């Protein structure tokens, strides 16, 4: 972590799941990510937190390997981001629930399961894991927004990938469901899965083991939440964020 001004505390004792070296991303004429350096610990819930338009989705998409015009290096689970041989190791939940509306939950999962080469028992396991068993034969278009989001999550869980990348998975969900999802994320992390969860809701940062605060395409700070609060002398992540912005603003 030498020379990394934004970091508070090294990734103590944990293995590195994702390592990002001088990554910049250009979209159109805009530089959406500027010179990002990060090391994200394995087996934890890593929150990528920042306001809308700060580059969260672009960072997430770069890690998954679907973002064009990425310069720099991204190493995911020991391989270059997006390489063909490792695509089954990363479960990806896009911002909008990317599911087929016109077929049932089970048919969706069967399709993605076949692409991954996993069988029916695994399909039933993930349907059960997101608690949708009783709706399994319903068409996705007849489901609520929250149920759809869970179908999308179930697809990402297929095959038990060691890394889950979730882009704003809790947007628009009711608080009870959100609570439940974060509970599931914690269970997954406890079983050794690394989760990268992006969110623009600062409150959700408190549920993460490791934070990356993004603003205007640059990393304000990253580290354990307690370290970030201690360093900025604040009580909430929102205040820490404001303090870091102020700190950066004054030369």
């Amino acid at each position, binding site marked *: 972590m030498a020379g990394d001004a934004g970091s508070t505390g090294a990734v103590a004792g944990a293995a590195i799941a994702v390592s990002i070296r001088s990554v910049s991303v250009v979209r159109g004429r805009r530089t959406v990510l500027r010179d990002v350096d990060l090391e994200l610990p394995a087996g934890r819930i890593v929150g990528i937190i920042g306001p809308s338009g700060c580059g969260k989705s672009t960072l997430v998409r770069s890690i998954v390997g679907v973002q064009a015009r990425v310069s720099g290096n991204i190493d995911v689970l020991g391989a270059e981001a*997006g390489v063909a041989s490792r695509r089954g190791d990363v479960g990806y939940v896009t911002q*909008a629930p990317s*599911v*087929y509306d016109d077929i049932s939950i089970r048919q969706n999962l069967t399709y993605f399961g076949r*692409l991954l080469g996993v069988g029916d028992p695994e399909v039933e396991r993930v349907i059960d894991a997101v608690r949708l068993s009783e709706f399994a034969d319903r068409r996705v278009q007849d489901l609520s927004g929250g149920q759809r989001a869970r179908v999308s999550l179930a697809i990402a869980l297929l095959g038990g990938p060691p890394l889950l990348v979730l882009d704003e998975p809790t947007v628009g969900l009711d608080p009870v469901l959100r609570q439940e999802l974060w509970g599931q994320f914690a269970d997954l992390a406890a079983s050794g899965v690394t989760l990268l969860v992006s969110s623009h809701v600062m409150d959700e940062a408190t549920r993460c083991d490791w934070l990356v605060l993004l603003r205007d395409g640059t990393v304000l700070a990253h580290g354990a939440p307690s370290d970030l609060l201690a360093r900025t002398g604040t009580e909430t992540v929102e205040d820490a964020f404001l303090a870091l912005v102020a700190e950066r603003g004054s030369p």
Partner: protein
Amino acid sequence: MTRRTARATAARVLRQLARDRRTLVMLIAVPSVLLVLVRFAFDARPAVFQRTGLPLIGVFPLVSMFLVASISMLRERRSGTLERLMALPATKPGLLLGYAGGFAVVAGVQAVVTLSVGMGLLGLDVAGPFWLAVVIAIANALLGMAMGLALSAFAATEFQAIQFMPAFVLPQFLLCGLIADRADMARPLEIVSNVLPLTYAYDALRAVADQPGVGSGVLVDLAVSMAMAALSLAAGAATLRRRTP
């Protein structure tokens, strides 16, 4: 991996269509209804129906699969499912072959039904073998699908995708020889018609309608239209990007 992707995708495409009963019924039944219209619109001139019947039957799958394929792919792009597929161990050729396989099945059913109605109920005479007419209809469906998939990359909305039909398919329909003999066209149009895929599909269907057996001319026309379908499919593959801006 490509085979796995293709099989899974073909099954999924068919499931989507099977769940959408209205679309399925229209895909299968509308061509027969139109054929009945042509038969009785030219009631006093049965020769017109005999001349245009089979080519029409062969062209329906092209039009319907063009539309279904372009809208399906547009939906994949816009709903985010394509991005998800690109992040999974799914191959691009597998995806396109899966689409082709699924649509070929539907086109085959459509052609068999329409041909049966035409030959059985409406008295359409087809000198060549029934199976060859079905094969050409399926080939046309694949051609329509390939063009639809390729063009869908240039459509930002469903409205635009629909407009590609009159813009790209209708001119081919007008110039293929069905409406007017190509020899009677203005010379520039005749030259243009020589490079349009539908022209070859039409010639193959005319040959099946008129000649018994499998003529070598049919096979050449079929090969040319399939080569053009392969070209369109390759263009479609080029528009499928794993990494997008």
